[in-house]
């Protein structure tokens, strides 16, 4: 006889969301299993620290469990979860009072020790950006969000978002120049 986990493994996400809304713990666990990699990767790009990223990702899922009965459309679960994740990250940053000293990048931030691997190099490069610039870059490049969507979700003016992304991308290009191999990667800022 298949376990609950096995029977949920092949279920549609909308069905799982519907069950989780009624308090079905196993359905929610399956949702966590499916979405954890995405949320943890997003948080890792945001904070550059795998332990902190996992803790924040757990907070995202805890909030999702608390609020899932408010979610009206089950097929919007992914977008809703992303918004929760960004809110958790912004709350974390506000707690650190980091958003107010916001310009381009802070060169006084010491870079973490060099580690092999593109992921570590990218996280190190992202860590050299100020928090607002980093969140704009991550949402644009990791999540593929438009400038308008980023402005809406971060409460930053559209012009500021565009400026952050342009300057942040320029900074990342400088730091990660070793990874540029093709001629088409030579883009105007």
């Amino acid at each position, binding site marked *: 006889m298949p376990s609950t986990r096995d029977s949920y493994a092949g279920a549609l996400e909308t069905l799982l969301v519907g069950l989780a809304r009624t308090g079905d*713990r196993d359905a*929610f*666990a399956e949702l*966590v*299993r*499916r979405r*954890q*990699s995405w949320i*943890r*990767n997003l948080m890792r*790009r945001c904070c550059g620290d795998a332990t902190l990223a*996992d803790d924040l*990702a*757990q907070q995202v*899922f*805890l909030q999702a*469990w*608390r609020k899932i009965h408010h979610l009206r459309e089950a097929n919007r679960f992914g977008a809703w979860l992303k918004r929760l994740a960004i809110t958790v990250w912004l709350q974390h940053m506000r707690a650190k009072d980091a958003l107010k000293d916001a310009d381009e990048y802070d060169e006084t931030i010491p870079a973490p020790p060099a580690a092999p691997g*593109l*992921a570590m190099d*990218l996280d190190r490069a992202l860590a050299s950006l100020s928090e607002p610039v980093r969140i704009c870059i991550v949402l*644009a*490049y*990791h999540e*593929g969000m*438009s*400038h308008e969507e980023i402005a809406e979700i971060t409460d930053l003016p559209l012009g500021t978002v565009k400026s952050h*992304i342009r300057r942040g*991308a320029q900074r*990342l*290009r400088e730091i*990660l120049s070793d*990874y*540029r191999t*093709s001629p*088409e*990667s030579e*883009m105007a800022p």
Partner: protein
Amino acid sequence: MTDDRDPALQALFAEVQQDLPADAFTAQVMSRIDRLNRRRAIAWICAGLVLAPGVWWITGPLQDAVLLLAQGLAVPLIDLENRLLADVVAPLNNVASVFALALLGLRAAYRRVSS
């Protein structure tokens, strides 16, 4: 995606996406959820235990007050001799209907002033 993006950077971001193992993380999340649910249940039980004597103590006076209020609101404005007529106009011929009309009038005046 309509905004200009650096394709090389986009490729880098796509490349670092890792498929992270789910089991340990999911177990941690569900364990935190179980703790949260237990704390909530305990909080509800404690609140019930604290509130129950208060509710028991206040129920009697509250019931008396509601009864008194209902009786006061049902007092007829005009004493009618004809029993049938009194029953027909009873929904309007009482103190409560005066309050209701006053509230409706205030609401209409507020809407007119605020619009």
